[in-house]
């Protein structure tokens, strides 16, 4: 089985936010929730880099570990998914997540959180693949259709890579070798406890 990963080649990202838009549209993500976002570091200075970030689908995911109701599960492809029927919206996964991936709809009084929402690697949830119930809660299940996440598919500069970890790592390494530089696979050390040697 493939181990699915994201890799953002920051030297290619032009901060166009097409990945963000594609994600929101594909999954009909509600207002105020962004499963993916682009963060620009050292904006306007030499060496500025932009990184597209979402749930990294960590190895030994911290969200899954701290969840008090065991709402998370990791698929055979290494994708970290959760059940909105089990989630109680306590916010613990947000404290534990190194990437700020979990999002909560604002419901009720004070900071009351609704059911958590996050990137699914376009792999839906526990409901039957492609069902309406699955779409309403988690958005499209492209993986079940043999397609990769839309954010990466949509990326104009092919900065954002999504797919089998070994393959995207190889693609990135080739690029780095060819152009002679690369600012590394952002988040990999934190998420997968490994880096791409470049």
């Amino acid at each position: 089985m493939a181990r699915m990963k994201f890799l953002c080649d920051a030297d290619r990202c032009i901060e166009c936010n097409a990945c963000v838009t594609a994600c929101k549209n594909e999954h009909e993500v509600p207002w105020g929730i962004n499963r993916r976002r682009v963060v620009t570091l050292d904006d306007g200075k030499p060496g500025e880099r932009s990184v597209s970030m979402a749930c990294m689908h960590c190895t030994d995911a911290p969200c899954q570990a701290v969840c008090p109701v065991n709402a998370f599960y990791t698929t055979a492809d290494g994708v970290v998914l959760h059940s909105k029927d089990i989630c109680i919206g306590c916010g613990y996964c947000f404290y534990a997540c190194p990437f700020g991936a979990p999002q909560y709809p604002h419901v009720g009084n004070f900071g009351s959180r609704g059911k958590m929402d996050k990137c699914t690697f376009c792999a839906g949830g526990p409901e039957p693949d492609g069902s309406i119930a699955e779409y309403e809660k988690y958005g499209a299940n492209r993986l079940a259709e043999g397609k990769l996440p839309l954010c990466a598919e949509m990326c104009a500069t092919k900065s954002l890579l999504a797919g089998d970890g070994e393959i995207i790592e190889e693609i990135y390494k080739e690029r780095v070798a060819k152009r002679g530089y690369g600012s590394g696979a952002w988040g990999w050390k934190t998420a997968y406890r490994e880096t791409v040697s470049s």
Partner: protein
Amino acid sequence: MEALATPLRIVLAALVFLMIAVTEYPAGAQAQSVNPTKSAVSEAQLLQQSRTIRGLGSIPDTKSYTLEQPAGRDWRHFHEVTLRWIGGTAILGMLAVLVIFYLSRGMVRIEAGRSGRTIVRFNAFERFVHWMTAVCFVILALSGLNITFGRPLLLPLMRPESFTAFSEWAKYAHNYLSFPFTLGVVLIFLMWLGSNIPTRVDLEWLKRGGGMIGHDHPPAYRFNAGQKLIYWVVVLGGGAAAVSGYVLIFPFYGTTIETMQQAEMVHSIVAMLFIAAMLAHVYIGTIGMEGAFEAMGSGSVDLNWAKEHHSLWLEKEGVRSRSDPSQPQPTVAPGG
């Protein structure tokens, strides 16, 4: 001339173009040798400088501008390992101590037996505040413990959906009951502050081991040193739990993920120790001591109980009621 001019101009233009190309080429080659990564930000370097990597984004949600915060891994270790050890040790340790204590000492009896005459110890308002705070505390404690220990202990016993339904209600109860609980802690602080300032009498009481550990009855005013300790545990522990709890109940109201992680650590450690302390309080107030529960139950205690445990208070009360003819007159032997 006119016929010659056009080809000449083309040749001239070509020459100029060639010259520019030749002179510009080394400069172009130089530009290619500039390493664009030289000044590029690197993840390892940024993580060395600060615990989080933050930049700028283009969506309104500014908290999403934090790219990475690996500290979540540390917090996870605290929540999954450290906290469970602290909580388990404090609570089970206290239960073990209480069981051993009960088995060896048993219920502390009123030595002189019941006199059949009583004196008011806590009025209706005091008892209302106590029980309001106590009921909230029990629900807050159980719903809080569910967050830490529910998954390993309770979830295996029920369907995941049932556990979620229970935990969701527990979460709402935890959030909303925090308000009457905090009110109770504030009222407790104000209404009993005067009787809970440590004095010289407390030192003597502690030296003689108090009414539980020692076998004699050191004098005490309305609250003895042990009760004063419980008072300050409730006021300070309850206060700390309330403040850290409100930080968590209002996420991102002037806080960041990092401060919320710290607030959660303070909240959970204080709560675990608080629960352990309250177990001892409940023990002494029920099966640990004869005649103690009535103080918060009916509000009146037996005169002999008061004589043995709060002699100085009884003296004072006796003086006050003697000067007030509307009160029933307790007979108190001088000197307790």
